[in-house]
Each structure stands twice: as C-alpha cells, then as structure tokens.
C-alpha cells in the first residue's frame, strides 16, 4: 500500500514537471536564427516552391485556412467595457473588410486584465501560437509593458487600440519594442490638452494629481503636471493610491491640504469612482474640479460614482473629430451588431487597427497558385511602419518609426447624472 502511494506520488510529481516544462520550451525567440518555418504546406504542385527569406520568419496560410488574428484586451473585471468596446470595433472591422486575398479572418483572444500581472500570462500564451499573424492589443499600458516584449520577440505585429503611455513609442525607451504600433494617441497630447483645458478654459491656477502606480496613470499625471507648470500654473500636491484601494480619505486629505482648484486622476475603475465620491466628502475639496482621463470614459463610472458623477470631467479622444463614416456607418453597424451604442471610447481605434493590419497583409502576402498565403513577419512590420495618410475612422493615420500611428485630437467631456455618453464641452 505504502509502495503504491509512493509510486503514485512519483507519477504525479513527474507529470507536474512535464506540464511545467512543456510550454517553456516552445517560445524560442524567432529573432536571430530565423527558423525556416516553411514546413512544406501543400505547395508540391506549385511551380516554384516559396522560400521564406524574411528576417524573422513567415506565416503560411493554407488555401482553406483562415488568417489568424488575436486580441489581448481586458474583457473581464472592473475595466471590461474598455476592452470589450475595442473588441466590438475589431469584429465590425473584420466583418466590414470581408475576406483577405480569398481567406477568412479568424479572431481569438486572451484577457489581459488591464494589469501587468494579467498581461504577462496572456502574452505568453499568444506568443506560443505560431499561426498568429498580428495581435490587436493591449487595452492598458501596464499590460503592454509585460506582454509586448513577448509578442514582439514572437515576431507578431502588435497594434494597440488604447495604450496611451508615451513610453511605448518613445525612441530609445526600454518599453518601446519593434513591431509595436498604436492607433491611440500618446499621452504627450492628452496631458498637454488637459492642462490647456484646465488653465485656459476653467481658469484654474493650482492643480494636484493622483495616480495608481500604473504606467499609464503615472506618466499621464506627470505630463499633465509638466504642461500645466509650463502654462504658468502651480502644482500643489501629488498623491498615489493602489488600484484596489477603497478608502481614499488619506490621500484626499493630503491633497486637500495643498488647496488645489482641480484634481486630475487619470486612473481606472473602481478607484476613479471612489475618489470622485470621497472627494465630495473631504473637507476643503467641496468646490474643487474633478477630472479624469480616457480610462474613465465608460458607463461603469456612472454606476460606480452614482450622483457624485455630476460635473466630473474626462479628457479623451474627440469623437466629433472622427471622419464622416464614423457617425454614418460605424455607429449604426455597432448598434446593429451589439444592440447598444458604443460602451467606451476606443472602439474606432480598434477598427482602424484591424483595417491597417489587413491592408498591410494584403500588401505583403505572397500568394501561391493554389491560394496559399506566405506572410513575411518583418515585411508586415515594414509595411505598417510605411503607412502614410491612411484615411481611417479616427483620422488621417501616418505611422512613425516607433509605431505611433494616431491622429490625436483630444476633447474634454463632462458627466451628468443619468446621461451617457458624457457631454462634450471643449474645445
């Protein structure tokens, strides 16, 4: 009996080891050796067999197979509307575009949870799948910091619809990776626009900021403070919370002691709603303007903050600056497919990301006589870097050498109780 159980135990340990080692072996970086991935599809009858000369390998799509695109977005938890909204835009784009060179487009995805902890495993799972051509994601810059290195080393072209941290496309930065693009603005624009709004439109002269330690919030708050000081304003304080903190009274007392006229907290749910509520109950902050950013453009903010949402400002992409096609065909298609108006702010960016990716695939794919596609991974990236004056939903897109493709126009919206989307008030 004892021997039997020890044998069983050994088996269990062995199988755990096997499972643990298994996946670790697969994601060998495809960068240096350029493994000849052309493991002979069905190209025997082709006159000249295709030979992959791409520096980081090719993806082969057999005649009856779909082109595999993946998403890495936040699709559960407190910020799910952000990612689901982008995913809706992606699905509309795939339906709108139709087949690519005779191939359907298939979409699979992973949930990144809007955090580095969620982005890491999701990125690793996607990186282990060599059939993926491109990834639309991530939703949040913290996810990107963990997932983009993995996806970039796997040779994918990654396009984010909503990462806005400046680092991700700043040249010579540890967070800037080859093959990473974004259709969302960099927060260098958002921070400056928000500061302009606060200083010139609201006329405030002292501000404070709160961030939650995420790459996005910390950088945006920093850009905002810098831009506001450049305009001649003063920063009376800066605080930080943790994303799952519920009692904000300490940080708000700290901020209140400086007597700011406006607090900018470009963070996420639920902390964003909690600060909004508790600021109203903090001595000294009763009259202070409260302002968030695009991470808080969602009906969840209305639900979370209840009546305290009244008057809350958010900086965000300007929906009215989008092309005519946005209101004329995109929004009706959204309503028809998902039965609701857009639920957050980065749906059109998701749409554009897919359209750019599919256009680039069409440009670089080599088609065999039997319909087999060969897509060079580096060629695909190069085609993306070369995008110039592409007429997208979100504007006129031109990709920079570091992957910034956005045509950023920032507006400020104001929430009112029971009204969604919030009212656009500036510029």
């Amino acid at each position, binding site marked *: 009996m004892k021997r039997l159980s020890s044998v069983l135990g050994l088996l269990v340990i062995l199988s755990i080891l096997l499972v643990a080692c298994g996946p670790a072996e697969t994601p060998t970086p495809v960068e240096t050796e350029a493994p000849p991935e052309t493991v002979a599809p069905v190209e025997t009858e082709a006159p000249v067999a295709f030979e992959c000369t791409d520096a980081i390998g090719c993806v082969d799509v057999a005649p009856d197979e779909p082109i595999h695109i993946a998403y890495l977005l936040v699709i559960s938890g407190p910020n799910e509307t952000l990612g689901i909204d982008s995913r809706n835009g992606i699905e509309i784009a795939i339906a709108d575009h139709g087949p690519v060179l005779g191939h359907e487009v298939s979409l699979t995805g992973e949930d990144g949870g809007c955090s580095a902890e969620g982005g890491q495993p999701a990125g690793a799972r996607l990186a282990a799948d060599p059939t993926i051509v491109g990834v639309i994601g991530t939703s949040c810059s913290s996810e990107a910091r963990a997932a983009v290195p993995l996806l970039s080393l796997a040779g994918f072209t990654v396009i984010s619809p909503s990462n806005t941290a400046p680092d991700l496309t700043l040249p010579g930065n540890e967070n800037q990776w080859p093959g990473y693009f974004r259709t969302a603005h960099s927060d260098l624009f958002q921070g400056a626009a928000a500061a302009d709004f606060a200083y010139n439109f609201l006329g405030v002269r002292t501000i404070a900021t709160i961030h939650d330690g995420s790459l996005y919030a910390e950088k945006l708050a920093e850009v905002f403070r810098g831009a506001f000081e450049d305009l001649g304003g003063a920063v009376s304080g800066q605080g930080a919370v943790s994303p799952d*903190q519920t009692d904000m009274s*300490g940080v708000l007392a700290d901020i209140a002691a400086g007597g700011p006229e406006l607090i900018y907290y470009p963070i996420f749910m639920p902390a964003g709603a909690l600060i909004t509520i508790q600021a109203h109950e903090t001595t000294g902050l009763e009259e202070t303007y409260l302002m968030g950013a695009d991470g808080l453009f969602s009906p969840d903010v209305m639900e979370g903050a209840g*009546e305290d949402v009244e008057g809350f400002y958010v900086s965000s992409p300007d929906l009215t600056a989008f092309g005519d096609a946005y209101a004329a065909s995109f929004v009706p298609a959204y309503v028809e497919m998902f039965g609701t108006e857009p639920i957050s702010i980065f749906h059109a960016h998701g749409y554009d990301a897919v359209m750019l990716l599919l256009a680039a695939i069409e440009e670089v794919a080599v088609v065999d006589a039997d319909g087999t596609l060969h897509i060079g991974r580096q060629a695909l990236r190069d085609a993306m870097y070369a995008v110039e004056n592409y007429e997208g939903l979100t504007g006129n897109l031109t990709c920079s050498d570091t992957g910034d493709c956005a045509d950023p126009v920032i507006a400020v919206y104001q929430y009112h109780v029971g009204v969604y989307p919030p009212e656009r008030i500036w510029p």
Partner: protein
Amino acid sequence: MRRTWRQRITFTDVVIWGIGLAIAAVVVVGTIATLRSGKYTPEAWFDLALSGLALGGVYALIALGYTLVYGILRMINFAHSEVFMSGPFTAVFVAQALNRAGTIDSHPVLSLLLITLVSASVSCLIAVLLERIAYRPLRTAPRLVPLITAIGASFFLQYAFRGLYGSGIRAYPTLDILDGAWNIGTFRVFRTDVVIIVSAMVMMLVLYAIVQRTKIGKAMRAVSEDKEVASLMGIDVDRVIVVTFALGGFSAGVAGVLYALAFPVVNFYMGFIPGLKAFTAAVLGGIGNVPGAFLGAMILGVVESIGPNLFLDGLGVPAPNQLKDLVAFVILVFILIIRPTGILGERLAQAKA
C-alpha cells in the same frame, strides 16, 4: 534554577525589541514632524479618524466571524472573506430592483432593512453550507487540512459568484437618508460613517450578549473549552458549530452591505482585502475573543486611515498613502512584539495553554 537577567535575554529578544523600538521611533518622530508642520487642519484629522472608525466597524463585523470560528474550532476560516462577499453581491440585485420600483425613495429605512436582511441571510446560508460541506467531514483531520480546504473553498466561492453574476463592478443605489452629513461646529459627521459605527457596536454587543448570557452561548463556550467533554455533558456539538458559523455569516452579511454603501465596489473579488484586514484585526485583538476583535478592528481601521498621513507625511515620504497597508501591518507587528497574544488575548492563551 535561577538565572541572571543576562542569561534570560537571548539575541532574538534583542533584535525583536530593536525592531519594536525602531517602529516606535519612526511613529513618534513622524507624528511630531507632521503636527509641527501644521499641514492638516483639525477638520481633516477628524474626517480621517471618522472614516477610519467606519472602516474599523466593517472590519469588526467581519472579524467576529473569524474569531468566533477560531474560538470554537481552533481553525482559521479563510473562506470567510467570500462569505462576506456573497451577501452584498446578491443583495445588490434586490437593491437595484427596489430602486427601479421606487421603493427606495418612498420607504428608505424599510428598503435598507430588507437589503441588509437578504444580504445577511445569503451570507449566513453560505457560511452554514460551507461548514456542512467543506469543514464537517474534516473535523477530525489534522489541523492543516481544513486550512487548505478553506483556501480552496474561498477560490470556489469567488469563481462561482463570478460565473453567476459576472466580473463587472456593481454599485448600490444612493440612499438619500444616508447621504450628507451633520455639522458639529466646524466638523462634519457623515451619516454613512455613523450608521456603520453604530451598527458595528450594536452587532458586537448583541453577539457578546449571546455568547455570555444565553444558553447557546454557554454551550459555545463549553465547546470552545473542550469539545469531547462538552459532548459528554450532553451538548450537541454539531449544532453549536452550525450556530457559530451562522452568527459569523450573518454579521459578515451585514458588514457587506455597510461596506458596499460606503464603497461601491461590489464584485466577486471585493472580499479579499477586507477579509485579510479583518483577519489581521482579529489577531491584533487576540483571536478567539469577541471584544478583542472589535477593539483590534477599530485600532486597525484608524491606524490605516490616519497612519500614513500622521507618521509618514512629516518624514517627507512621497505619496505616503500608497503605503497604508504597510503602515497597518507594521503596527500589527509592533503590537504583537509587545503582546504576542494580541491586545485582549492573554486570558484565552493562558486558559488554552
């Protein structure tokens, strides 16, 4: 054999007392520096203290569940944070239905009582089921087994509720009777905070009275002394344990509604942090001791709320509020260095030794 004080003090003692002294020094220096800078008004301190007490009240109601179960079974019920989550997560649907029907506006007190009752009943039911399904079959197993089971049950409940109700965040509708504040001089007293503190005190007194004055309370204390002997004396041990879990679950359900009224973050994960804090509070007060749990929770709540601003701000620590959990746990370490059994834990520890 008599030893001199030199022989009795070990190296470990010196290190531990050194750590204690360092914590005390940081607290004293930081406090003096902050108060001398005059950055915060008395109103700000009052706000912080009040919200700390309210938070402490919620912790206290959860901590009662930990401490009652520990007192009787010598077991830490780590799934208690999910018992706390299950009630308010279910009652939020009742609240939203009442809100749509307009009942919340026409009969606010009645609605609140109904919501609390639903929440408390669900939590109570979950706690009892947990005991019946997960813990009772393991009652004679080694002590580590129910502990691991509790962690498993905690995950099971979290993801069961995520599957049932989704992973998004929900919020209770605003109750006008709880909105706003009373002004006492220049100080503001928020109604929500008062309701939380008063409810916590009432619940604590009721539970203490049940344990000390009723027949079932006597049975609980007897089982806590010695299960075998208690059952020989004709006490139905199973029934006593079920009642204990039910009481803990009920108070966690009430805590859940109070917590959700103050912080609209109702989702499947909401129990984790408050549960951890409440467990800490129970240890701080001396686990197994009902007034101790209350005292520990209040101390923890206030320290967590005031601590970062009072102790760290004056030392020039940037963004001290990120460190609020650190402050709370360092104070826990400090108190456990001085009193290893918790603030009110001594009698119990001697009795069990």
